[in-house]
């Protein structure tokens, strides 16, 4: 069995968000790059857990990005992936990204494709669903639990106010979120092993961009907190009712 895990390079959660070139590009100065947490903590770790249970499972990693994405894909290998593919392209359009991954995945014989539920930079939550369409495969989004029973997957997914449990025959594409697995930290053995694991670079397939980023903007600065004395709770309620009109 082969599992493909899609990983994306994102700025660390605590990064200061700023823009340059007339607010048309993200300012990368001083930014620490990480594997998108939803890809790493949930999608990748669950794939590794399945491999630990059944060593015949191969876990492949894929990312769309330039050479600067290699440290994060090496880290993903250190966590336990077997081999990695980097599609040598910058992408800011989810269709272009999905089309690149689909071009590689269509002949890869993958039984399962895992993605994170979204990236923490563009928050698109789109690539998994698009990939499923391009490969004409079932898609379960926002999975909170994933179990394998032979060639059938049992998956819990988030719905408003609860969860839904579904069964689906492989192959399937699943977007993973909290609950599917628990975050791990790579150990020294994994880091050493990752240095020699295969990392294949492939050139992008022909695909269109269907969107373009025109500009970025920061939200208006908050006016600052209005503190109310702990002994005067009625004043807080008055402010919420009369000033903020929130109750």
């Amino acid at each position, binding site marked *: 069995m082969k599992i493909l895990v899609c990983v994306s390079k994102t700025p660390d*959660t605590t990064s200061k968000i700023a823009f340059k070139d007339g607010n048309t590009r993200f300012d990368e100065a001083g930014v620490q790059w990480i594997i998108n*947490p939803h890809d790493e903590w949930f999608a990748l770790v669950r794939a590794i857990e399945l491999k630990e249970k059944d060593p015949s499972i191969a876990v492949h990693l894929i990312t769309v990005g330039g050479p600067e994405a290699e440290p994060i894909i090496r880290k993903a290998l250190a966590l336990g992936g077997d081999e990695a593919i980097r599609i040598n392209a910058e992408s800011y*359009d989810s*269709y272009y990204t*999905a089309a690149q991954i689909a071009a590689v995945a269509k002949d890869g014989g993958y039984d399962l494709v895992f993605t994170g539920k979204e990236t*923490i*930079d563009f*928050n*698109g*939550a*789109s690539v*998994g*669903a*698009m990939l*499923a*369409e*391009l490969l*004409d495969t*079932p*898609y*379960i*989004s*926002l999975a*909170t639990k994933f179990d394998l029973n032979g060639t059938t997957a049992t998956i819990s997914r*988030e*719905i*408003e*106010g*609860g*969860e*839904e*449990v*579904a*069964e*689906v025959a492989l192959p399937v594409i699943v977007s993973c*979120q*909290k609950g599917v697995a628990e975050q791990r930290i790579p150990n020294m053995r994994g880091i050493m092993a990752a240095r020699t694991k295969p990392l294949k670079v492939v050139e992008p397939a022909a695909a*269109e961009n*269907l*969107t*373009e*980023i*025109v*500009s*970025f*903007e*920061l*939200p208006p600065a*908050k006016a600052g*907190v*209005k*503190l109310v004395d*702990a002994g005067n*709770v*009625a004043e*807080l*309620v008055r402010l*919420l009712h009369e000033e903020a009109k*929130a*109750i």
Partner: protein
Amino acid sequence: MSVLIFIDHADGHIKKASLEALTYGAAVAKQLGVPAAGLLLGTVQDDLAALGKYGISTIHQANNEAFNHLDAQVYSKAIAEAVTTTGATVLVFSHNQTGKAVAPRVAARLKAGVVTGAVALPDTASGFVVKKSVFSAKAFAKVNITSAIKVVSLNPNSFKIEAGEGTATINQLAITPAAGAVKVTAVNKVSGEVPLTEAEVIVSGGRGLKGPENWGLLEDLARPLHAALACSRPVADSHWRPHHEHVGQTGVQVAPNLYIAVGISGAIQHLAGVNRSKVIVVINKDPEAPFFKAADYGIVGDAFEILPKLTEEIKKIKG
């Protein structure tokens, strides 16, 4: 040319997020000078014709039991067929759980650009530029959709529902669902609760409440506010509260009118899930808690003393 708005439903009722999407889609259509129509897959108990009050003239319904459960593959084929049949050029979804599974998939099928998590009407002066929330709500991006068909999903609670007069005509669409591969075996819902993503008011607790036995104080406050309950990540991880109540970057992302955070310090990961809230109130005994920097109103003090008083004062206002 027309705007087609996907109407999402559960348990026989149309979701509130769909009413926002209808209002938004109708406003997009008005801006473009084209008609707006709704699209419903499956059946609901609600009066569909009455949805005309949100500004749409027609509701296309594809009535088949197979549509009453979400299978993204089945939905995307049916919706794409409806887009082709109706000649729609703009397709609107809510960016809720269904929209996240389906909107990008339909977009890929139609080779249409998609902007998910839109927060405002598109700028159509030169192109179709949609503002969306990015970097976990720490910034916005303006994204131009360059394809002929455009797909937009609207962030819940980011567009005011407006109802006027009017009724919609119901048009039955002959769409035969494709065979589905996903078999739903159980649906576990907490009955009677307002889903966090749809809640107007959220009362949320953190480690400062010291233990699950103290959540009654938050429930007492939530009741007169008709608020949904939420919690921070350590609370869910400690199993004080169920995981579906966890809001934050790895939990549910919310955008209520009012978010009351009690005993939550306000780590950046928590803020990433709540900073689209219109008004934030923070109650914390630590004056240095970072959450105060993101708050509109705050009280520095002991939650165990403040909460009962706050509940009483709210009851006076709410009757």
